[in-house]
């Protein structure tokens, strides 16, 4: 019997309220969750149930009101902005619903952006890695195209390549196929999961798409700020 894969991310009893005054809503009501390397997790649920809020908390883009988040065994929920930023750079890759490419930069430059910040590779190595990632998502011929010169599906594939650039242990994807047609949805999902699995990365994705959710290793339905 083989040992279960290493835990990449763990959170426990997460609370988060959004809004102010009378309009303040208790979005997350004590959520606990863990993700292991090489596994793909889908978080599903109706709009407003707290899926994206949870994802941003796990991605250290937001801070919880209560609870704990550990990345690679290190508690990050109470750390300062500098530590959380460094953790994002090294351990986390994001894919957003709206592609979020930097449109003034080419596909290659977009993929190199996280690598340049991390600074582990030389310039030549960065170019080679970015080229290789773009080739693996089927855009080897379009590396020098600007974001504006790529279709929606192509932009999202660049975003996938970018998320993988620093070989993070966790990939967080917020409805990565939500803005794509069926064909491109399948393509992007397959790319994301296969590349992540190859590299032993934990993938947590939020989706409304039941087909996509069904193809994940684990599905965690959410309702009213809690896993059900």
């Amino acid at each position, binding site marked *: 019997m083989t040992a279960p894969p290493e835990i990449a991310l763990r959170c426990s009893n997460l609370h988060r309220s959004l809004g102010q005054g009378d309009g303040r809503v208790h979005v997350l009501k004590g959520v606990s969750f863990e993700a292991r390397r090489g596994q793909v997790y889908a978080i599903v649920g109706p709009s407003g149930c707290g899926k994206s809020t949870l994802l941003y908390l796990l991605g250290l*883009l937001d801070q919880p009101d209560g609870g704990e988040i550990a990345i690679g065994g290190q508690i990050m929920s109470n750390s300062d902005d500098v530590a959380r930023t*460094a953790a994002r750079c090294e351990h986390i890759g994001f894919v*957003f619903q709206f592609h*979020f490419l*930097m449109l003034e930069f080419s596909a290659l430059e977009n993929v190199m952006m996280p690598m340049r910040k991390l600074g582990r590779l030389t310039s030549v190595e960065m170019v080679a890695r970015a080229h290789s990632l773009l080739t693996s998502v089927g855009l080897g011929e379009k590396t020098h195209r600007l974001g504006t010169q790529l279709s929606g599906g192509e932009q999202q594939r660049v975003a996938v390549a970018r998320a993988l650039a620093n070989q993070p242990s966790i990939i967080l994807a917020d409805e990565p196929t939500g803005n794509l047609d069926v064909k491109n949805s399948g393509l992007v999902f397959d790319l994301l999961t296969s590349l992540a699995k190859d590299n032993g990365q934990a993938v947590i994705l939020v989706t409304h798409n039941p087909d996509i959710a069904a193809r994940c290793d684990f599905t965690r339905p959410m309702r009213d700020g809690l896993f059900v």
Partner: protein
Amino acid sequence: MSPNLRIAFRFLTAKKRAMTMSLSCTVLGVGLFVVTQATTSGFEEFFIKTILGTNGAMRIEDEIQDTLAEMKISENSEFTLSQREEGRKYIEGVQEPKLILEALKNFGNVAAASPVLRGNVLVRSSFKNESAQVFGINIDDHLKVSDLGSQVVFGSLEEFRATPSGVLIGKELADRLRLQVGSSILLDAANNQLRRYRICAIYETGVSDIDKVRVYIQLNEARSLLKKSTGISFIQLNLFNKDRAPQDASRLEDVLKHSAKPWQVREKTWLEVFRALRISTAITVSVFTLIAGLAMYNTLALIVMEKTKDIAILRSMGYGRDDISQIFIWQAVIVLIIGTIGGALFGASATYAVSTMPLTITGIFKTETFIVAWSFWHYVQAVSTAVVMVMVASLLPARRAARLEPGDIIRGTAQ
């Protein structure tokens, strides 16, 4: 190139119109600052050159009379004799010029000295009479403390040097009396001395107050005309370092017991006018630089608003608040570098163009064109002003960008 600089450059070039506006304002601000400072300083420096070339860097004039405020009755006595002090008193002129001239040789900053005997006269020509002042000089001494040699517009100094009854007359006075080189005039001193002189040369300093009243004659001739066999009115000095004149004047007064007036005190009124003019133009032109700052603020604020999504992406990729702040500061720096270089070139070109523009001024000096001063410090001041304005203007948008919470942005975009 650092990642932040690379991103800053792309952000900026993506907003071409706004960036061009900021850049134009910076270029204009720096350029106009340079050109106005060059012209105001130019006129000021030319005025100083003119007055140094006419009245010298300093004048040793009236003798200071000793006035004691308090005096001990004897060396060992506690008692003192008090005298009411009524300010400094002077005895007109320099009674012992030779002693003073000898003493002046011990002052390292004194380059040359020229004794001058001055007196009021009436100049009579065949056309009309005019009041004037004769300045009795030793021409060779006086050429060392003034620019008289280069101010001669008609005739020659050689003739003046060789002719005891020769005079140098100001152009304005010559015009009023309709005199030319070679004409004869009568100088009528207050003591009923009336003597005939011949005009050897006509000079023009450009200073109206000099050109319409001053008549130079030989010093010995002046003694005879004014009936002053000893003493002189003042000693005009040339200094190696003109800026040190006030300090030297103070020392000279203490040592020589004669009043010593440096050019900075003598011409204080005009110098204050020039200073006020320079400051007021600097303030006026700084408005352009202020507009450059506002344009920069506007551009960056616009970019922050339009790039919130990109800021969120960068933050999600591990770019910190400092990086975001730096990206916006870099944009201001890029505009500043290009703007100040462009502004300096524009300023230099405009200064050159202005210096060739015809402009006739006489009165306090004489010029036919705009006078400009080429000074490295004008560029330093212009660039410093632009740096302060633009950097201050960029801090606010940069801080705002750095404060943006990536979670809020992404949540807002997704909704």
